[in-house]
């Protein structure tokens, strides 16, 4: 009976401990092996250079980071990635918001609209990019056909360095509007109907209701959607990979950080440098997220509990 700290632990409490440990064991083992150790391993690898032809890894200290800071391609990729996020996130969320507000009423064909807007979300990005490449095709694409019919000059959507990133961003917006709309719609439906009824009695119009009731009360959902969309956008890869190959004249002006990470790690087989690039991505995502969390006090409205 004199087992020190364990004295007060009853048998049923002890069994709760064992059950707890047993139930979390698979997840924790997996998490540590698959995720936690790899974080440190990636950091560790970023101090090495992959040797040629089985010469193993050579310790190079901070060389990869020095190279990173002086690599114009990395800075292009940082700029492209941020620009992409700035093109996709605000526009995409604004469109998703408008659609969600319109669908949050007893409008005819509500389910049909929702179903259609969500279709791009269930399509493989690889297939989606293929059809967009076809639509963008400078000689035979549908978009240039329509432009030429309307007497506009045609555009090299995927090869013009000034345009390619915007073309990619358009695909990004198109494929995420439905996803964000569904999240916002769920948020809108949680706003109590009585608020609208009360303001109607006070004689408020639809537009005023939107700015006084809907917008403030949706800001927590909106904040969540902005933060997650931003993180997703900063990790853009699939569409750029499928659309812009290394020989494309627009490569420099459209390569993203994750694409650069992929090319360095798995195409040029320099995993050390690839690791350094992904650490840079981590830092950028952290900074952007912290800024957003700090800024939320200025615009996110939390209803007081109780």
């Amino acid at each position, binding site marked *: 009976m004199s087992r020190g700290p364990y004295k007060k632990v009853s048998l049923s409490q002890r069994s709760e*401990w064992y*059950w*707890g440990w047993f*139930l*979390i064991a*698979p*997840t*924790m083992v*997996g*998490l540590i*092996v*698959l*995720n*936690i150790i*790899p*974080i440190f*391993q*990636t950091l560790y690898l970023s101090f090495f250079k992959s040797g040629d032809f089985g010469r193993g890894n050579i310790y190079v200290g901070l060389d990869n980071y020095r190279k990173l800071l002086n690599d114009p391609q990395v800075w292009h990729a940082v700029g492209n990635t941020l620009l992409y996020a700035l093109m996709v996130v605000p526009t995409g969320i604004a*469109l998703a918001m408008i*659609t969600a507000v319109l*669908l949050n009423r007893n409008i*005819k064909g509500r389910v049909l*609209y929702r*179903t*259609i807007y*969500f*279709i*791009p*979300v*269930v*399509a*493989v990005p690889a*297939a989606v990019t*293929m*059809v*967009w490449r*076809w*639509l963008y095709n400078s*000689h035979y694409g*549908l978009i240039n*056909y329509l432009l030429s019919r309307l007497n506009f000059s045609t555009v090299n959507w995927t090869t013009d360095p000034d345009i390619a990133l915007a073309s990619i961003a358009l695909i990004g917006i198109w494929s995420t509007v439905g*996803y964000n709309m*569904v*999240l916002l*719609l*769920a*948020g809108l439906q949680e706003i109590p109907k009585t608020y609208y009824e009360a303001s109607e009695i006070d004689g408020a119009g*639809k537009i005023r209701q939107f700015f006084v009731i809907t917008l403030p009360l949706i800001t927590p959902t909106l904040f*969540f959607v902005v933060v997650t969309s931003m993180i997703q956008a900063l*990790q853009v*890869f*699939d569409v750029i*990979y*499928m659309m812009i190959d290394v020989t494309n004249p627009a490569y420099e002006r459209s390569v993203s950080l*994750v694409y650069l*990470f992929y090319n360095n790690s*798995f195409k040029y087989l320099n995993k050390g440098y*690839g690791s350094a690039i992904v*650490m840079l991505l981590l830092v950028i*995502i952290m900074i952007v997220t912290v800024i957003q969390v700090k800024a939320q006090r200025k615009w996110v409205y939390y209803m007081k509990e109780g």
Partner: protein
Amino acid sequence: MAEGRKLPGFFAHLFLLAGAFLMILPFVWMLLTSFKTVTESTAWDPLVIFPASWKWENYLEVLKQYDFLRLYWNTLAMMALRVICALLFSSMAAYAFARLRFPGRDLCFGLVLFQMMVPPQIFIIPQYLMVDAMGMRNTIFALLFPGLVSAFGTFLLRQFFMGLPKELEESAKLDGCNIGQTFVRVMLPLVRSGLVALAIFTALFAFKDLMWPLIVNTSAKAATLSSALAKIQSAYSVNYPQLMAAAVIAILPMLVVYLIFQKQFVEGIATSGGKL
């Protein structure tokens, strides 16, 4: 009153219809192109909208060149295994994190949160090196590997378990259930909507994943639909009708499943997003 409401309703429909048109147009164009000959697909003056005859040749050609049955199987196996692992391990851990008290709980849950905050690309090189060291590249297991456990699923289901009333466990205990029985018989059935949401979320994102299958399963036999399309594109870069046929084959199964279960899909995504 009625007069004033008609006009905004009209504009709402106009906006929504234009949006719906833009959402569908790429898919319609994909389908139409897949039935055209190369000449029809590149005709500009006049533009050929509908093919002269609906021929299946592009599909037959693509199916002959690529073993789509195999790609379907690889993709389906990866999705199913990832869903099973996520449901099984995440529900166990989520229940323990939400309802049990034991030493080390908060530290472990902290690790779950930490994993969710880190961009997943950071895990890829070490995970690849592990699969390579095991000699498991170009296998179904390799496709499953990063999805063996799910921090997101654990977090999501924990939210569901936390919402259940405390009395349930107490009465189960009085009925003589131990913790394992309480979990499986009483609590698990009550978070069904959470399990459905997690299953849909996991399956959808496994289906869409491109980088991991591209890296780990380089042989054509072990590819997924997503990574195979990337290869097909570079092989057929000019024959758009055949490329579109391949794209249709890759998109169709998930699209059909979605159209049948659209309510569950949309609600699943809404709850998994909203519970974060």
